[in-house]
């Protein structure tokens, strides 16, 4: 019984929102905004559900003697209660973001730099074919042209135009990929709209 009802609600709501995007009727627009607000609230609730699921996973790990998860749970609880009591605009609470989250994530992004460098080095071994060679050559070219190393050369009229033309090349390929991705996204959305795919039934 749950399946047909969920499927029906999905199809009706999806069609209403799609109609509201194209049709400028005030009634449909109002219904669309109403439904979108519900969707935003539900997305927030789903986020809370996901956070509780994460806490439960870490709690299970604590019970299986993985004490690193205990630190995670304690840090979560501390941040939650400090923000609840002090407020988001409190400078001490802001330090949680600026002093802990930003440095940690920035460090991880720095590690991404090294990971990319090592991946590029291993690319010589892994993909020793035409595509791999083209990838490496293009990597060098765009790294040079976009880093202003050739800043002085860009002032030369001919060179500047060539560099500008080279910098537009990835855009052409990217646009083609983005078009295909858009079509795939439309197909995935339509499958949900017509009820062919029902990941929400469980």
């Amino acid at each position: 019984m749950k399946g047909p009802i969920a499927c029906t609600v999905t199809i009706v709501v999806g069609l209403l929102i799609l109609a509201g995007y194209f049709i400028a009727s005030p009634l449909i627009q109002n219904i669309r905004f109403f439904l979108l607000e519900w969707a935003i609230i539900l997305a927030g609730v789903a986020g809370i559900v996901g956070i509780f699921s994460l806490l439960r996973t870490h709690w299970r790990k604590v019970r299986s003697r993985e004490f690193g998860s205990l630190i995670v749970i304690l840090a979560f609880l501390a941040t939650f209660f400090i923000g609840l009591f002090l407020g988001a605009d409190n400078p001490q609470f802001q330090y949680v973001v600026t002093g802990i989250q930003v440095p940690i994530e920035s460090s991880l992004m720095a590690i991404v730099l090294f990971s990319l460098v090592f991946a590029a080095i291993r690319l010589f071994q892994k993909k020793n074919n035409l595509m791999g060679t083209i990838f490496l050559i293009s990597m060098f070219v765009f790294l040079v042209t976009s880093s202003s190393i050739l800043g002085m050369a860009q002032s030369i009229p001919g060179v500047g135009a060539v560099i500008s033309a080279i910098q537009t090349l990835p855009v052409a390929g990217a646009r083609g990929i983005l078009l295909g991705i858009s079509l795939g996204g439309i197909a995935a959305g339509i499958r949900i709209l017509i009820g062919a795919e029902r990941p929400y039934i469980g």
Partner: protein
Amino acid sequence: MSALNIILGLFFILLFAGLILIYSLPRMNKKPPILRKIEAVEKLKLAMGLTVEAGTRIHISLGNADLLSPYNGSALASLSVLEQVAVISQLADRKPIATAGNGAVAVLSQSVFKNSLEGKSITDIKESNQGQLAGTTPLSYTAGAINVIRKDQVSTNVFLGNYGTEVALLGQTSNQMKAITLGASDSLTAQAVLFAISDDPLIGEELFALPAYLGTKRIHIASVKIQDFFRWVLIVAMLAGAVLKFLGSL
């Protein structure tokens, strides 16, 4: 939005949906579909079998896509692939794990796992942490997913969804653990990184074609056919527009 845009948009959506429905009918699918061979898909199928035989896990990473964002298509396609993988791998000694960077996608992944058990004579469904929210930001999700890759006996990592450059960390960890690494993303940045990191990357819209390759549902095959059809329509339209503009400028 102008009236022409509205009409064109509605016509496009209705035509797309109608063609998918028509091509998913049994009458239109009498012959088996001919899909071009994708090495990554073949490797994925092989990896799933090897993982089940070896008694290890498959890790499906669903990315950071939000269902309310325009990139929810990749999340939905990833959930379709997850369903196929879940059906195959649920009988394994170690159940597959899905990690997501968004709460709604994590909840849906749990629903997909639960749905894959229906109708099967599987009594042990207690492993409820198969669908996890690993983190709320991309880097925190990466840190949580790295933890899963390192500690949960994962031998195959499949990265599907919306990522940034942080997917390089996931791929590096997967390579360090000697796991099979496959990736597909709708983000151009992530595709470039996955090309260098993973064993067999999927470029562009191949992510959305994965359900047709892994499963046998007519709707997925019809979707792939219609995508190809409209791709050619767009190519012709762009070429025609460029030619006309060029001729107009003369």
